[in-house]
């Protein structure tokens, strides 16, 4: 079975919700929609307090090329526009909407499905852009930007990421099982955007063979559905490209540099809805899991739904034993300090756990065992990154492969000394970003003087 080299780990899969059908959560009374749900500049709010909005109406516009608009997930009144806790751990400006109960769509949206082949390439891209679609696997990169690579970059392969390698998460799996046709049409739409014919792959981990079967059944001849070895991080963009095409991204390269475009399952589904039904991105499917939530489900909810409402929908907490609430998966997600955060375009899962390892997390000396090197899927040397960062030599690390690291957590997973390698890498990246910023400011000041 195809897989990526080198490295990778096999954490326990914990796919507790793999057989749980997607449940549509009713829209709650209050929605809190952040203006920053994507990579790039946050959107600019277009509405003011006490404005009435219809479902799908643009409430914040994109700011620049690498940005995306934000829409009202339901009809109602704007209650407030202020900073609110965000899954990133920071306070981000969010637009709160009180639902009026009518769930009324704005004019011209949510139409009967049209055939995308009747649209021009420019129409397709503008529908994707206007719908505010971003990479829903977690990165949140605006999709319309991804579909317009810089001139000179020839795309010959488009890959649909059905790997879902994080433990616990099953939302992409269920989307493939329950809506294979829509997902595949979304993929075809994205492939049609490129002038020259492209090879189309769907990569799915082998722990989801029923999804492989269903996708193969519904896929036309032009789409190759491949089962990949279940290994973390199979769903990482670079690793997926390596597994399916054998190509490798060197430092600083992006997928279009090797002729590839990778998109997530949920993104493809959203593209289908946007292009064929003129439906903006206002809801998504995510997994609610972990031992400490009463009912573990795959939920489709409106963006801006607060986690406190979702917890109620899922039967509340199992007990008082919960000590961590994670937004995302256990490997690359983020532990939250409050339940008072909204669902965003990039929320793939909510985990309620009793992490027993927290008592054992004291950093011990590096044993130089080399397990981190074995595990690193980017072929880097995590030990030296953590080592030099702790000795305050973080500025040397770019030449030791710091920027090749995608913070997948494989190294910290295997380390017997429980060293916080991912933290030291994030810290070093911040130190180096600071240095670059100061250099840039210095250069600008020098230019002004001269």
């Amino acid at each position, binding site marked *: 079975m195809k897989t990526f080299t080198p490295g990778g780990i096999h954490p326990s899969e914990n796919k507790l919700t793999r057989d749980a059908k997607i449940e549509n959560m009713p829209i709650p009374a209050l929605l809190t929609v952040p203006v920053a749900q994507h990579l790039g500049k946050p959107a600019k709010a277009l509405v003011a307090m006490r404005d009435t909005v219809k479902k799908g109406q643009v409430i914040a516009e994109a700011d620049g090329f690498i940005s995306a608009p934000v829409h009202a997930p339901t009809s109602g009144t704007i209650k407030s526009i202020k900073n609110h806790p965000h899954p990133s751990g920071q306070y981000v400006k969010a637009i709160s909407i009180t639902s009026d109960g009518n769930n009324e769509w704005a004019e011209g949206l949510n139409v009967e499905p049209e055939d995308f082949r009747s649209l021009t390439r420019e129409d397709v891209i503008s529908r994707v852009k206007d719908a505010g679609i971003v990479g829903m696997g977690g990165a949140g990169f605006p999709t319309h930007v991804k579909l317009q690579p810089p001139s000179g970059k020839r795309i010959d392969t488009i890959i649909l990421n059905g790997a879902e390698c994080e433990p616990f998460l099953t939302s992409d799996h269920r989307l493939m099982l329950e809506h294979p046709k829509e997902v595949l049409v979304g993929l075809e739409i994205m492939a049609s955007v490129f002038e020259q014919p492209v090879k189309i792959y769907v990569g799915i981990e082998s722990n989801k063979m029923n999804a492989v079967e269903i996708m193969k059944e519904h896929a036309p001849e032009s789409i190759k559905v491949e089962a990949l070895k279940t290994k973390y991080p199979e769903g990482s963009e670079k690793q997926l490209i390596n597994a399916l095409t054998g190509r490798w991204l060197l430092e600083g390269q992006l997928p279009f540099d090797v002729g590839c475009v990778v998109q997530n399952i949920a993104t493809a589904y959203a593209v289908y809805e946007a292009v064929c039904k003129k439906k903006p991105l206002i809801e998504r499917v995510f997994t609610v899991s972990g031992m400490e939530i009463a009912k573990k489900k795959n939920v489709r909810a409106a963006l801006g739904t607060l986690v406190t409402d979702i917890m109620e929908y899922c039967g509340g907490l199992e007990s008082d034993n919960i000590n961590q609430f994670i937004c995302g998966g256990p490997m690359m997600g983020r532990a939250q300090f409050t339940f008072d955060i909204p669902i965003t375009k990039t929320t793939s899962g909510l985990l309620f756990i009793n992490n027993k390892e927290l008592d054992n997390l004291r950093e011990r000396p590096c044993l130089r065992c080399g397990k981190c090197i074995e595990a690193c899927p980017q*072929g880097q040397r995590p030990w030296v990154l953590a080592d030099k960062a702790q000795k305050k030599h973080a500025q040397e690390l770019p030449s030791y492969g710091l920027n090749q690291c995608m913070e997948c957590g494989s190294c910290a997973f295997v380390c017997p000394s429980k060293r916080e390698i991912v933290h030291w890498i994030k810290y070093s990246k911040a130190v180096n970003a600071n240095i670059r910023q100061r250099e840039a400011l210095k250069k600008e000041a020098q230019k002004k003087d001269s």
Partner: protein
Amino acid sequence: MATVELKVSYPPYNRSKDSIERIMYTVALALAPATLASIYYFGLRALWLNVVAIGSCMFFEWLVNKIRRVQATAWDGSALVTGMLVAMNVPSDLPFWMTALGSFVAIVVAKQLFGGLGFNIFNPALVARVFLLISFPAAMTSWPKPFSVDMETGASPLGILKTEGVAAVANMDLWAAFAGNMQGSIGETSALLLLLGGVVLLIKRYITWHIPLSFILTMFLFTGLFFLIDSDKYASPYFHMVTGGLMLGAIFMATDMVTSPLSKRGQIVFGVGCGLLTGVIRLFGSFPEGVSFAILIMNAFVPLLDRWDLASRGRHGEGGAS
């Protein structure tokens, strides 16, 4: 709902069950069959030697931690393993006080003075062995015969080879030596049980095949080459496989995580270097056994091998830092 306390910690929120304790105690378990065999071959004296070596190692670890006022590490398993290895590197009738002195050198000098676990450059048990060998050559080179009631001692097969030449060891029963029925230090005897322990560690992925295989294979080829050149002067490579500390050294001492290279390519160079040095010392040096010296010399190269790895490119062309 009662208020719950959410803890914020660094990702990943899911770690492997491995820990320093697990690794060390598994290594101790892998060494246990050979230790038990030594008690079988050399009697209760070997048992007391192990007790003294392990006990004094753990004592010195505790003492230095107290003096340095750092986290107590006497029970993390590393002192236990060092103690077992110190015992394995000496004759079973070595005076207890010499053994305790060896433990002192291993734990205090070779390990704690460098900063403790993870910071030492040289393998502590080997530093202890070489220290004892140089300080007490007579006591350290008279080896009790297995099963002898009144501690009949003599030279080990390698010792006989060095002083009397190939003819004197030509008819040695190699299978007996492989199983452990041979004069030598406690750990040198049962190659079979050491291999078994090595397999356990390989399955658990605490060691990989790179160092043991390159070490043993290089030794085999080196001694085999000279055996082919002149079989009257040089013993057969099979003889060299089962005598002396080769199995103990290649499987348990050279693979010590702290003192061996981090990268696979560095580990292979390390193993080849150990094999060559052992061969040269055994065949052309004055000492009958070279494993300890070879490993210690290669330990000194490890920082360089790690730097070489940092500068090398990976299989996809990645890496290549300064």
